[in-house]
């Protein structure tokens, strides 16, 4: 699995440029406070996976691509947590999830090709009595009682190939819920990566979700950055498709005017909208 380490400069950039979307229920608009993130961290989980099953609101998943040869460790996770806390993030508690990769049981190896290779199982703390089966390529997400795992074991048609444990902390940052967790295989305590997930928390329900959805689809285009992808995958917005394809396009110039600011977060650094390869001066 890819891994990386953040240099102190990159950590500083991360802290000053953490992407935060704030939603104003009064103005029904979206203000993009800043939109650039440091280029080094590790993302193992396919980003939209948790979002598809956990989000009842639009969520944002950030993919980081690592620097070659770097390693990930607890210190990086601590620094990321400090980033979040510096944005007035409030700890809400521990967060844990388990992702299982299944593989088909076949008499011969060659037969396995007939069956899906991306069959996953997921448990999340918000729904402790539920379990989710996912076939990514076919965009199938099944929600079932947790006893479905027992059924799958008894069927003896698929078995667990590897399970990943996500353990970390959940924060509340303004209108958003942010989770930071270390990723480790179930058979080892060795940290293999870090996941960071943000989720919009709307108090007003469906009406504001629809407003947010319309605002997103009309105003915020899918952005592609040099080293990472900004992915918005709303769960309940049928008019919006946030999936992105892998690309190395370097155009960061926003093509839409930002609505009026109603945020208490630090103002964006203008250089964030320039060439991401250029050095960025921290405030």
């Amino acid at each position, binding site marked *: 699995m890819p891994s990386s380490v953040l240099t102190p400069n990159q950590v500083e950039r991360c802290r000053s440029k953490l992407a935060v979307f704030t939603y104003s229920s009064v103005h029904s608009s979206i203000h993009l406070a800043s939109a650039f993130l440091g280029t080094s961290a590790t993302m193992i989980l396919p980003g939209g996976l948790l979002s598809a099953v956990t989000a009842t609101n639009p969520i944002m998943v950030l993919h980081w691509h690592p620097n070659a040869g770097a390693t990930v460790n607890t210190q990086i996770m601590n620094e990321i947590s400090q980033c979040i806390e510096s944005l007035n993030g409030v700890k809400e508690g521990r967060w844990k999830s388990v992702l299982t990769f299944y593989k088909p*049981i076949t008499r*011969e190896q060659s037969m396995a090709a*007939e*069956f899906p290779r991306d069959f996953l199982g997921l448990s999340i703390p918000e729904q402790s009595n539920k379990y989710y089966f996912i076939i990514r390529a076919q965009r199938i997400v099944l929600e*079932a*009682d947790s006893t*479905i795992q027992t*059924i799958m074991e008894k*069927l*003896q048609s698929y078995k667990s190939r590897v399970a990943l444990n996500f353990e970390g902390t959940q924060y509340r940052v303004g209108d958003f819920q942010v989770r930071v967790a270390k990723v480790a295989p179930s058979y080892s305590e060795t940290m293999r990566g870090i996941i960071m997930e943000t989720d919009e928390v709307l108090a007003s329900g469906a009406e504001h979700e629809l407003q947010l959805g319309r605002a997103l689809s009309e105003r915020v285009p899918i952005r592609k950055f040099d080293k990472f992808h900004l992915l918005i995958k709303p769960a309940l917005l049928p008019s919006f498709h946030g999936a992105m394809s892998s690309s190395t396009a370097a155009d960061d110039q926003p093509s839409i005017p930002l609505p009026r600011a109603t945020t208490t977060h630090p103002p964006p650094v203008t250089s964030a909208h320039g060439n991401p390869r250029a050095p960025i001066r921290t405030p």
Partner: protein
Amino acid sequence: MECVVQGIIETQHVEALEILLQGLCGVNKERLRVHELCLKSSPNLGFVSSDVRLVCDLEQPEPTWYMHILICCYYFSSIVHHKFQRDVICNPCRTVRHIGGAMRGAGAEQISVLVRTMVESKASKNALRLFYALGYKLDHELLRVGSAFHFHRGAQITVTVSSVNKMPKLHAIDEAVPVTPGIQLVEVTAPATADNYAEIVAAVSSFCEYLAPLLHLSKPGISTGVVPTAAAAAASLLSDGGGTAL
């Protein structure tokens, strides 16, 4: 785990049976309308073939906005009513059920109730699509229509009286026809664990004795046919509404 016995009864005696059950259980019958899809793994999947059932309770559709429109439109157009009724029926609750092997050994042979492993899980309505994607195929499907009684009598017991129907075309519920016209299946089940199955078996066996004049209940797969006293017992029940003990 669950304890199970089955028996058959002629359709003409079902009304009498339901009167008896209502008297014994102290509960009203519930409508039963279940679409059961039996899936089997494809030949190359697993070392041995595996079966799983998808049970759709057609009497309990998921609450959707279709329901509200159904209620409103009912008063305006019968055509719209039928359209949305179909939409509602297409969104029932799903249960994934795996029935495992029966308990074996000398002890199991001595008891008249089948004890077997059974695991159920409620699931979202795309369960069939998931299992198709995993390599399962539809082996057969059935529609059970009848009534169910849920009560506690030494154990949490469920009695279902239903006609088993087959569909001439795929998922054609409206065109289902009885597999055995004139005969209905009676099934008595009770959940059990490895620790209490003996008590559950005793409770089920005891309850089945009350039904003996109308039908004989035994382990699934062991057919005993209809009982000769069924007609007389049914007549007795219908004549006095079940007030006379059989």
